[in-house]
């Protein structure tokens, strides 16, 4: 299976049928004529395998469904046999060199997001996520697709199928922030996901409380900052304002309640004390109830015996 040669199977009949039956409206349709019905993978020079199939129906239902393929895949002109040969605008070319190592397939297309989402792209590049990609040349720091999924099938965040939807974002962030290897590699807190899940916020969110905050409500999303960065919403001095978005009138002593910090020694020993209290109460109750029940049975039996005599 793992040959360097390509293993493509094209369903010619269907492709031809589609080509004749559908009136070609946008250039995406002509690409999709083949790519919609392709299956299998192709191996690039880098050794990476990429999927040849683009699900046309899902693509057209996505937020980018109105766009022509070549709006992002700029290097690929109208004639697929002469591609890739398109001229790439300077800004995108430059960006593609910065983030190229993140792109599995088409670095230019990955950079083309900036055409429409310029402000957001810049925010991400300035964030610790982007910083790790651009200045440290890391592969595993998050860029657009790591959170939003395949560019062909991006849906709005309100859509439950979105990976950045309210009900899936914790898992999406947790994919890296709950990963032992990654958190150790970047020397970031290892317990953020578990402490969130165990917190009131996390529990309510898990139970479907629409008002319960997820990661992004406190930490921000594209413009995320390190917690010791004064512009971070969870920087000590900004916490009151951040918590105050939901908890009107939040005070300094109140915001101390919301933290990813592990349980300190005082609550820890208090918990042990309470557990001991529970266990000893339980031991007393259970032994009392069981012994009493047996003595009741014993008394009833001896009464019966006496009655028979």
């Amino acid at each position, binding site marked *: 299976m793992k040959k360097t040669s390509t293993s493509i199977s094209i369903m010619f009949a269907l492709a031809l049928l589609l080509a004749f039956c559908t009136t070609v409206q946008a250039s995406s349709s002509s690409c999709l004529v083949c790519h919609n019905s392709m299956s299998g993978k192709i191996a690039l020079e880098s050794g990476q395998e990429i999927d040849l199939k683009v699900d046309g129906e899902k693509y057209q239902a996505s937020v980018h469904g109105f766009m022509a393929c070549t709006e992002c895949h700029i290097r690929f002109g109208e004639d697929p046999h002469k591609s890739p040969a398109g001229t790439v605008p300077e800004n995108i070319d430059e960006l593609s060199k910065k983030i190229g190592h993140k792109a599995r397939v088409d670095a230019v297309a990955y950079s083309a997001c900036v055409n429409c989402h310029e402000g957001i792209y810049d925010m991400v590049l300035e964030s610790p996520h982007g910083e790790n990609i651009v200045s440290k040349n890391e592969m595993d720091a998050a860029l657009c697709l790591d959170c939003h999924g395949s560019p062909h099938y991006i849906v709005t965040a309100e859509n439950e199928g979105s990976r950045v939807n309210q009900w899936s974002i914790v898992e999406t962030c947790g994919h890296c922030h709950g990963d032992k290897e990654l958190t150790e590699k970047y020397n970031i807190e290892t317990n953020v996901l578990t402490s969130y899940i165990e917190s009131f916020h996390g529990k*309510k969110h898990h139970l*479907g409380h629409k008002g319960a905050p997820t990661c992004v409500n406190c930490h921000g999303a594209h413009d995320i900052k390190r917690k010791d960065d004064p512009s971070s919403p969870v920087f000590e001095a900004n916490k009151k304002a951040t918590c105050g978005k939901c*908890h009107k009138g939040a005070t300094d002593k*109140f915001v101390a*309640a919301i933290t990813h910090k592990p349980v*300190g020694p005082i609550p820890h020993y*208090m918990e042990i004390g309470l557990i001991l209290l529970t266990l000893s109460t339980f031991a007393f109750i259970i032994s009392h109830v069981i012994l*009493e029940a*047996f003595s009741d049975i014993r008394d*009833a039996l001896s009464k019966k015996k006496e009655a028979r005599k």
Partner: protein
Amino acid sequence: MNQENTVPKNIPEEVERFNIIFRIQHIIMFTTFLLLSFTGWGLKYAEVDVSSWWIRIWGGAEVAGLIHRIAGIGMLIDFAWHVLYLIYLFSTGKLKVRARTTLIPIWKDVEDVVQNFAYFLGLTRNKPRFCKFNYAQKFDYWAVFWGMFIIGSSGFALAFPILISYIVPEFTTGWIWQAISIMHSDEALLAIVFILFWHFYNEHLKPEVFPMSWVWITGKISTEELKHKHPLEYEILFPEDKPGKEGASDAK
């Protein structure tokens, strides 16, 4: 249980054990307790799959949270009413502290526990003779007080955290909130387990009371049962029926 009639004819068939106010307080207490337990349990074990289903039954997380808060406030008000009512009863002399009728734990309760265990184990043939409230009932009663102080106060702090943050000392902020959460959740578990095993066994499942002791709704206890279960109270209520006296019934 079919006990033979041991109470003389001149003694009333039943006496009032709990007046209407105590009965209402008890009904509010257990209603709010059940609501709090049902909704709180789902939150405590939110990560368990069945909890999501359970909370949906209660109308979803928002509604369950609202029910929990309303029930919590209701319980605290009920508790405050009870305490104020007791203060009123004691200050007007309608209730007096007497060893045989008080709910306050006394040394005799410890002796009763020891003697009862000895009886269970067959070490003695005599059951302890209880006052108006035996140690199991006192345990039940004071468990609510303990619960009110620990779970009630922490629950109030969790429901109104910003208000409480004004009175929280500065040096405790590093741990107080975690401590409050642990107090609320762990002690609630203790309370539920306690009620489930202790109160349910003693007042519902025990063969002699099954399916339940009706005193919570009628407020009345038969003198027969009183004599059997609370002999020391019976003796001060009806001194005319004393063992050895004429007409005494223990003879047979």
